[in-house]
């Protein structure tokens, strides 16, 4: 579904990604871990189409399309979803209104008719249950005055509504209390199916207790320096990143 080949990127002349290779198949869950500042959010942003970053080398194929050629909105319409590490506030625009606009633009792109109000409402109620989110929150201005946890939960609600083929969750677990973490993780698990894929960016094993990854990757200084199964995350939890850093220093 997603195949990243030798991806290099920089911002303002500063190199951040140094040759990422990653293969994600439909039905898989990948976890990306790594120390602060290693480039995890940058990778997520580049996949979503953030223009500040300059891709200097490499390619990204998404379901047979050259992802880097598409505008950010077309990537979204093709099914790429990013749950932001820091969701943005939009005053005066409710989540409901926002999502309705989004869904209908996606439908228009696919040559489908706008969703009628009834169907929209019905879907919304279903998905609200899935992530146990309250309608009062959805009527409020998007993310404005939301608590950290509410913002994250709202991101997953949006994901549920948009049903993306590829969901990238950037530290969705941080800021969630224990109950919320379980609810959000359960929500994600229910959305998981053989046709979609999930990339989880996280620092902690506890999320991976709920959403079990098929592959775990360690990103360090803009490169994936280690990949493994779910046990790699446990090893990192136990030993930290020092051993990886030492390993890398030795290679260099």
């Amino acid at each position, binding site marked *: 579904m997603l195949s990243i080949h030798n991806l290099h990127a920089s911002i303002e002349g500063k190199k951040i990604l140094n040759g990422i290779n990653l293969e994600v198949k439909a039905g898989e869950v990948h976890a990306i871990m790594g120390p602060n500042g290693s480039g995890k959010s940058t990778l997520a942003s580049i996949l*979503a*189409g*953030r223009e*500040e970053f300059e891709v200097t080398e490499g390619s990204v194929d998404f379901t047979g399309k050259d992802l880097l050629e598409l*505008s*950010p*909105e077309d*990537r*979204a*319409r093709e099914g790429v*979803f*990013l749950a*932001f590490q820091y*969701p*943005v*506030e*939009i*005053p*005066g*625009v*409710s989540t*409901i*209104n*926002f*999502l*309705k*606009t*989004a*869904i*209908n*633009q*996606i439908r*228009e*792109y696919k040559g489908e008719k*706008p969703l009628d*109000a009834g169907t929209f409402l019905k879907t919304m109620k279903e998905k609200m249950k899935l992530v146990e989110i309250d309608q009062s929150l959805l009527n409020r*201005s998007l993310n404005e005055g939301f608590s950290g946890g509410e913002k994250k939960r709202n991101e997953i609600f*949006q994901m549920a509504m*948009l049903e993306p083929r590829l969901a990238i969750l950037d530290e969705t677990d941080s800021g969630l209390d224990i109950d919320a973490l379980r609810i959000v993780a359960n929500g994600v698990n229910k959305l998981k199916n053989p046709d979609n894929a999930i990339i989880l960016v996280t620092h902690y094993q506890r999320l991976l207790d709920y959403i079990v990854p098929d592959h775990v990757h360690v990103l360090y200084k803009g490169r994936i320096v280690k990949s493994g199964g779910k046990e790699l995350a446990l090893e990192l939890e136990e030993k930290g990143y020092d051993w990886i850093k030492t390993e890398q220093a030795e290679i260099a």
Partner: protein
Amino acid sequence: MSKNDNSILEEITSSEYKYGFETIIETDNAPKGLSEDTIRFISNKKNEPEWMLEWRLKAYRQWLTMKNPLWANVSYPQIDFQDIIYYSAPKQKKKVNSLDEIDPELRKTFEKLGISLDEQKRLSGVAVDAVIDSVSVVTTFKTKLAELGIIFCSMSEAVHEHPELVRKYMGSVVPVNDNYFAALNSAVFSDGSFCYIPKGVRCPMELSTYFRINTAGTGQFERTLIVADEGSYVSYLEGCTAPMRDENQLHAAVVEIVAHDHAEVKYSTVQNWYPGDKEGKGGIYNFVTKRGICSGAYSKISWTQVETGSAITWKYPSVILKGDHSVGEFYSVAVTNNRQQADTGTKMIHIGKHTRSRIVSKGISAGKSQNSYRGLVQVFKRAEQARNFSQCDSLLMGDQCGAHTFPYIEVNNPSAQIEHEATTSKIGEDQLFYCNQRGIDTESAVALIVNGYAKEVLNQLPMEFAVEAQKLLAVSLEGSVG
């Protein structure tokens, strides 16, 4: 409102000023230029009584002694008042008695503008007075309103049919010599709407006036007078458009509102005069005086305006809070793009005790435009316990436009409570990217964000107008980001 959001967003993909067509219609014009003869010509055309002519001439003589005001934060070449046609009327064969007799060209014009003149279409529930150039061409729903004792007609008709009301109230809120453009209007006004709501009557439908400048070289000088008697209520809407022309055309209107004890008047405007092209060529000079007086206790006047058009806007809908416990409100969204200039705001004059006012102004500047808020909150000595809350926000798009606020506060009673808040913001890259990431293109994202920003004001508008206004905001700002 949100139900219609998406259809709106779909529609906005094609831009440009869509009301820029001209109706080819025979007109009856006054010769160019301004003199006592012009005024006699207008008065004569309208077959006016002597007192009306005298009133006009007095205003004209006052105007001659006055000077064009220069304090506003706008700049434009001197207006040549001798180069304007002061009276232009679509030629009607005879007086129209029913809608079927209206010139088909005119009917088509209104259809293009999306205005229903058809009394059968009761669904729309809006009574319309339509003014083309200098005269009112049709007023709908008259009989139904008359059953309730409501008078809703053109100003010309009111001068003939209800002279006692016109003489009593016209000029009582905006005196003839109030300002340069008001004096000019008083001298040459050609038509407009008149509305009287009797005691205790709640007007069951929105009353609406639709203004259109059609003929080249004409100025439009209409006058609207709304009188709400004790305990009555009316919601009034005003819309305006003009063809695209390279020249600047002058629109100098006067609106007066009187609210007696316990009466309430809501006045909403969606102003969409032609703004000129990208380089600032052409467009309407919109120099308007709007003022209401809460003359009775517990009365209320609210102004809501969505200003997207005109090359230059100079306009300060105000409320004189004379009656104790009276309330004045001003809700405004003013958009400027390209080379547009707007200097707009309000005055809240607190005279009575326990009077309250609320000002919510949302400026949006894009392109190379200049957008100024100018407001005065004045509390008289006897205005015990007066309250004012003002919120003035500016949203900037790009870095070549300007936003300015000039709030003036004069308080002469220590018990007054005045609150003023102001913010300036920009549409952030982060916000746009967030929308893009959900599949929303940048143009629609801007529309969404701007409508969110202006929501508090748009919510004040009646439903049909709110939808129209949302579209307008989107269209006015097209191409201003990215």
